[in-house]
């Protein structure tokens, strides 16, 4: 076997695209005449690099001489290196047809070596062990394009993607690339028809090919290329949004998308700082139940759940959304590019299906406003989310509460628009997280505070302490649990839990009592 050692980790780590690579990508796209994904392009690029390095190494080792392989054919005068004869070099003197029933059209070459000795060798025979002299060793994964792709894509994928993205000659849609100049022109009339068809379908979504068929788009070209061209024309027209999960291209009419999908609901907007929560992890871990907050990063990217129980916060309850935290992101459909992905919520117990939207960029899932209301859920209710049987389906339900009424913190708005909390008996339909539960009897009144950004005008630590003071009135010891405070602060403005804990731990007026309980330091102390 022939060994090439250059293709190691360092080679791929330091890999950068050369002019030759770029030419290769263009040629590949021109040759295939269909759009190719970054993954396919990268795998092809890796393969060509392996082949090139093999060729280069052979040339360096043997100069211009050919390596003798029984499968090859030779010409008179060719100089050949014989690996099986200690790399002896010989010159082809004669060529004749061979006869051997074991082989199809074998040839015999007579070779004269430098020593003067002549020998005859087989040529044009496919089945001989020597044909594999230069093959890549089977157990050497460095020559396996799939292995290279799997192990070094962290170095390679982004570099290629960045190059392709910055390249004006290429266009991308749904993860595939193609030269713009080779695309088929799509007339605006077809796009107008597409708009009308989507409008008829309540905005969509409709897959590209059925949409193409309905607008009667045809051309004397490959269907994939036509589909890609149509996709691009739709993508570049603001009237249309691609809303399909990864691997599917679905089109929706932008004007018919829910407002809360196109625009982040005000309850979810956070403009404050982020705290490095490494130092707060020990406190955040004491939160009861799993806290999924899209503003936090502590729940692992790698941990994949099929079932997650979410304790609703007021902003999500009011917006009809769920937080797309790291864990939840893995459960919901995602996309290569589409900023919004449409999917289906299924409430199996009620035999109810309704649309949901993953708003990837702003990390929330929309579509539950009516469902929350119909089921009389409150902030703090436990919502159970599970992966559906089919991709693009999410099961959603809740456990019904055994009690009809419970004592729960209730938000009351004073005539001066001050927020106060009182423990009141409230009707309950679903199980809830006691620390997170809050009943807002008059959300419209609370909306006014949000609309006027009353609390947003002050520093967040001031809001935290203001709400803490209100909560501390609910018990004689004046103790406030950080998780309850997190839930309560979010009734008036968006705030991640780490920010609440950070300010509690660093406030000179607050002391930590342990177990996430805090209270104001008494003045006479």
């Amino acid at each position, binding site marked *: 076997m022939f060994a090439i050692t250059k293709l190691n980790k360092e080679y791929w780590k330091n890999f950068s695209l050369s002019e030759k690579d770029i030419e290769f990508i263009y040629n590949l796209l021109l040759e295939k005449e269909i759009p190719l994904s970054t993954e396919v392009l990268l795998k092809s690029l890796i393969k060509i690099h392996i082949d090139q390095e093999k060729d280069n190494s052979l040339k360096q080792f043997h100069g211009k001489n050919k390596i*003798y392989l*029984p499968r090859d054919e030779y010409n008179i005068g060719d100089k050949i290196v*014989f690996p*099986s*004869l200690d790399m002896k070099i010989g010159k082809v003197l004669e060529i004749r047809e*061979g*006869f*051997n*029933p*074991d*082989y199809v059209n*074998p040839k*015999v070459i007579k070779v004269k070596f430098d020593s003067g000795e002549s*020998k*005859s*060798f*087989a040529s044009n*025979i496919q089945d*001989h*062990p*020597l044909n594999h002299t230069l093959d890549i060793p089977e157990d050497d994964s460095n020559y396996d394009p799939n292995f290279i792709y799997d192990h070094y894509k962290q170095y390679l994928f982004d570099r290629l993607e960045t190059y392709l993205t910055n390249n004006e000659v290429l266009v991308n849609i749904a993860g595939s690339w193609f030269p713009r100049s080779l695309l088929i022109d799509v007339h605006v009339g077809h796009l107008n028809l597409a708009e009308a068809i989507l409008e008829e379908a309540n905005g969509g979504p409709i897959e590209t090919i059925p949409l193409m068929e309905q607008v009667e788009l045809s051309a004397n070209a490959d269907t994939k290329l036509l589909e890609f061209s149509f996709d691009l024309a739709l993508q570049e027209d603001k009237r249309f949004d691609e809303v399909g999960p990864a691997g599917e291209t679905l089109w929706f009419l932008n004007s018919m998308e829910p407002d809360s999908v196109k625009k982040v609901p005000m309850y979810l907007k956070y403009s404050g700082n982020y705290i490095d929560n490494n130092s707060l992890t020990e406190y955040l871990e004491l939160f009861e139940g799993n806290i999924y907050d899209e503003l936090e990063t502590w729940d692992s990217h790698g941990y994949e759940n099929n079932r997650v129980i979410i304790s609703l916060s007021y902003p999500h309850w009011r917006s009809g959304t769920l937080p797309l935290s790291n864990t939840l992101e893995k459960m919901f459909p995602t996309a290569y590019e589409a900023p919004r992905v449409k999917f289906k919520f299924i409430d199996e117990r009620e035999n109810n299906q309704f649309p949901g939207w993953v708003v990837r960029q702003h990390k929330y899932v929309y579509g539950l406003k009516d469902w929350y209301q119909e089921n009389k859920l409150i902030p703090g209710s436990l919502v159970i989310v599970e992966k559906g049987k089919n991709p693009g389906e999410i099961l959603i339900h809740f456990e019904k509460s055994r009690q009809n009424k419970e004592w729960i913190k209730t938000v009351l708005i004073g005539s001066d628009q001050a927020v106060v909390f009182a423990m009141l008996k409230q009707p309950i339909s679903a199980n809830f997280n006691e620390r997170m539960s809050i009943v807002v009897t008059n959300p419209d009144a609370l909306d006014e505070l949000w609309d006027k950004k009353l609390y947003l005008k002050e520093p967040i630590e001031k809001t935290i302490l203001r709400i803490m003071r209100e909560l501390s009135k609910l018990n004689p010891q004046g103790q406030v649990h950080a998780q309850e405070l997190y839930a309560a602060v979010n009734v008036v403005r968006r705030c991640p839990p780490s920010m609440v804990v950070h300010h509690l731990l660093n406030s000179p007026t607050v002391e930590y009592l342990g177990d996430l309980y805090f209270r104001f330091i008494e003045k006479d102390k």
Partner: protein
Amino acid sequence: MPDGNKKFSLVKPTVDTPFHIDFDWWKETDSNWRIFLFSFLCEKHQELFSDKNDSLKIDAVDPETAEVYPVDGLLYTLMNHCAKMEDFIPDNLPLIGRIFRVFLANGNEPLNPQQLSKMVNRPARTILVTIGGHQVYKGIRPIIA
């Protein structure tokens, strides 16, 4: 099928003495030896050789170096193809016939009676007595260094 009676050595073979088919012996003692060998070819190759020159040469290819040697076509085909077929050595053949086919099947690699014993399922001594005497059967002779 005439049997030879020419003495070739005074050294007495043992169960460890290697034997093989001595094709030179065939050439010297039987002018029809190729016709005899022809009968061992499989159907496909009998067809191939029926209309070919009797002295047809084949370009044998060395399995390691791919060097080409012109060899006797009939013998090459017989030993490299036909004798490798599953039913080439039937159980019901007489001892000499089976030993002869064993040598054809293994490319005429030398084997001693002990080795042959395992292949034809007969005692090594019986094999030695049969093929180690003065009488030469089907060209099977000891290799005496």
